[in-house]
């Protein structure tokens, strides 16, 4: 009996940056054999690094503060790029778990021929490049389905495969803006330039949606024998996640902006400063019962009896004053302490966790969320783990992120059965193989 849900499913991936690799990671977690096809001739930016061999200013050396060229996205193990920086990059290594890597030069006919043979023994081809990249390489759906009629081909450029903006070279940051989300997540009363940070939900959303799309197509193929092309526009996967806000426009012509940390219907809700440096807790009161719980937790100070705060309507109206009064209380406590005090009273509340908090958090630890992984060039670390638990096919990090070209032998010799002579010749001519960018 297969011990993993996607055992026996082979996915060939040319995925880069964040959204693509996240989706193929979910497939690899489920047990699919995900083979990354990479190239020692071409370095896709923000994947195995920003540059193959970054200048020192792109390897931040300070541990505590992440400011600088691009913050936490540029972290190498121990802040050392090393001889092969592309194997030591956190952004890559966190999402390439459970995948394999081989190198093929797809711009050369012989490389393309090897790639064709790989597609012929695979179930899915998965990519998130700009549309013209695959087209220029001659890797259209028509070409691939000619080689393998039931291939499932998922393409997920930022804005999809058709339409006037299809070639827009955007990242999660731009897709967040185009989809409308950036204007929905600002500080009320402040202009959009305050909406800073390096957190873009579209990548997570599109990646997960892509994994779902592939699974639907696999199910359909098992039933009908048919493969197909899937056109996933990342913003189109995102807009449904903001559905009610768009419905408010289509039903009522209301153009919603941001509520910041508040809730449009219930109060108080917000993010309050706690004891310590840059420490915060969120509190979210959704009913009179929870409001009473909050009052009890704070020791029922006299201001809580103010009749303006007696109803949800009043609390919504006077939330500015209410927030100040609540913060006077939270400031005297640790952020975790506030959570425990309030949860005991049945009030939704929790610390705003930085990375230290997360690694030490009792809940994540108790569920074994972090997994210890030994990587040949990065060493031993605890990695963020699985996004769900399955009772009969438990998932885990079965292997670390692959080093560049780590599975050349397996793919070319074992899987495709290239002869010794072919291997040697193609490797010598740099058509296949290799483990370093040239």
């Amino acid at each position, binding site marked *: 009996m297969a011990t993993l849900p996607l055992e026996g499913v082979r996915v060939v991936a040319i995925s880069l940056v964040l959204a693509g690799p996240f989706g193929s990671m*979910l497939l690899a977690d489920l047990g699919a054999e995900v083979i990354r096809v990479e190239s020692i001739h071409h370095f896709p930016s*923000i994947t195995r690094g920003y540059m193959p061999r970054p200048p020192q*200013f792109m390897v931040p050396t300070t541990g505590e503060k992440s*400011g*600088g*060229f691009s913050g*936490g996205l540029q972290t190498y*193990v121990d802040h050392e790029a090393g001889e092969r920086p592309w194997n030591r990059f*956190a952004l890559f290594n*966190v999402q390439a778990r459970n995948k394999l890597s081989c190198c093929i030069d797809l711009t050369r006919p012989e490389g393309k021929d090897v790639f064709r043979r790989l597609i012929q023994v695979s179930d899915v081809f998965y990519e998130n490049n700009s549309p013209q990249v695959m087209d220029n390489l001659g890797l259209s759906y028509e070409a691939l389905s000619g080689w393998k009629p039931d291939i499932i081909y998922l393409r997920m450029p930022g804005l999809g495969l058709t339409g006037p903006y299809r*070639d827009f*070279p*955007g*990242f999660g*940051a*731009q897709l967040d803006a185009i989809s*409308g989300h*950036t204007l929905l997540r600002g500080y009320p009363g402040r202009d*959009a330039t*305050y*909406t800073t*940070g*390096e*957190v873009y*939900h579209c990548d*997570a959303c599109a990646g*997960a*949606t892509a*994994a779902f*799309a592939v*699974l*639907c197509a696999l199910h*359909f193929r098992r039933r009908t024998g048919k493969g*197909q*092309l899937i056109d*996933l526009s990342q913003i*189109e*996967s995102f*807009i*449904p996640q903001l559905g*009610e806000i*768009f419905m408010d*426009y289509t039903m*009522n012509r209301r*153009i919603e902006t941001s509520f910041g940390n508040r809730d449009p219907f219930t109060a108080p*809700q917000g*993010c309050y400063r706690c004891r310590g440096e840059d420490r915060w807790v*969120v509190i979210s009161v959704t009913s009179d019962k929870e409001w009473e719980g909050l009052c009890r937790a704070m020791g029922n100070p006299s201001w809580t009896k103010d009749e303006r705060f007696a109803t949800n309507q009043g609390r919504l109206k006077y939330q500015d004053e209410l927030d100040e009064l609540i913060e006077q209380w939270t400031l005297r406590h640790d952020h975790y302490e506030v959570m425990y005090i309030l949860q005991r009273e049945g009030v*939704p509340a*929790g610390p*705003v*966790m930085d*990375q230290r908090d*997360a690694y030490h958090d009792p*809940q994540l630890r*108790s569920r074994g969320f972090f997994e210890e992984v030994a990587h040949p060039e*990065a060493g031993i670390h605890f990695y963020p783990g*699985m996004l*769900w*638990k399955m009772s009969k096919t438990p998932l885990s990090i079965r292997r670390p992120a692959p080093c560049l070209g780590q599975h050349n032998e397996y793919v070319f010799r074992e899987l495709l059965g290239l002869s010794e002579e072919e291997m040697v010749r193609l490797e010598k001519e740099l058509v296949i193989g290799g483990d370093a960018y040239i």
Partner: protein
Amino acid sequence: MEQALSDVKVLDLTWYIAGPYCTKMLADYGADVVKVERPPEGDPARSIGPFLGDEPHPEKSGLFLHLNTNKRGITLNLKTDAGKSIFKELVKNVDILVENFSPGVMDRLGFSYEELEKINPKLVVTSISNFGRTGPYRDFRATEIVEFAMGGEMYSTGSPELTPLKLGGNVVQYQAGTIAAVSTMGALLWSRQQGVGQHIDISIMETQAGGADRRNIYLLGYAYGGVVTQRWPSGGAAAVRSLLPRGIYPCQDGFVMFLGLPQWWPRFLKLLGLEGEPRFQNFIDTTHEDEFRAIWFSWLVDHTKEEIFKLCLENRIAGAPLNTVEEVVNDRHLEYRGFFVEIEHPVVGRVKYPGAPFKMMESPWQAKRPAPLLGQHNEEVYGQLGYTQKDLARLKEEGVI
């Protein structure tokens, strides 16, 4: 046209957002989803806005209408004996059951996974909760903002002089629903192959902590180098070590978001008409930063969002407008692709909804029916189980349906 999941049957016990979005994804790609609501009020999302005409009404909630397309709806009181026995009959004939009650609720109703497995060994049961079915926070209460604060990357979202900031709407719960749909499909494929179902335990906190909105990268960044992310200064001040624009900037009629790769610097110079300008050839040489910024900001206010987007498309630069909701609905690219679709609903009428999250060429997304009215398919679904009109009248009287 046949859909990807046309042969899949789902029993949907979900409410609010995360669970319903999971089953919406299944229903929109063809699964027969029967949504079970408790009488008399149904899914609490029916009482959450926005409402058509701002009039609170159980059939006019935009949230509920969006989240429940393509599902059939029945009412059933699972706390009654008759309700429990009907529920068991329903469980026999489905592939998937999804629920997002607080942990322990299903067990108390007598529907623990172990019990359900006895009724239907092939059943996939997906349980979504704030913190998962185990652990010290299992019974803690949470809402959207609490889930993001604890699981996600709220700490570094926003400006350093202000509070950490939540994301828009309810995206954390929607994302949990999306992840739930992925895991459910994985389990379904295995169940169809092996003839054995299983139980999936989804913690919304973990869907955030393992998520690619950067949280997973920043967590590993801490393990790799002790990096704790901070909130960024506003106004482009974060780019202190280079001339490369990055972040949100004001333009003539709104705001634009720019992000540049080092190798794109020549494209930027071309965009601004500064090719060959010796002061700015090296983007990390900030000697003439003030002069560069003066040119950059005046260029921005000379152009509208639309003009800037057009120029960025031509010059292949990652710069884009901050669109309003209205601009998105009327966007010509989305219109070209037919993204928003009109769906007719008996109470709300014809309204545009967000459409397919992806286009499958052989087994497409379809809007076959609007969200169900409360109990709309009682006769149809219970009729299939053999209940007569008379039985249904009695069950209604007894408060079962």
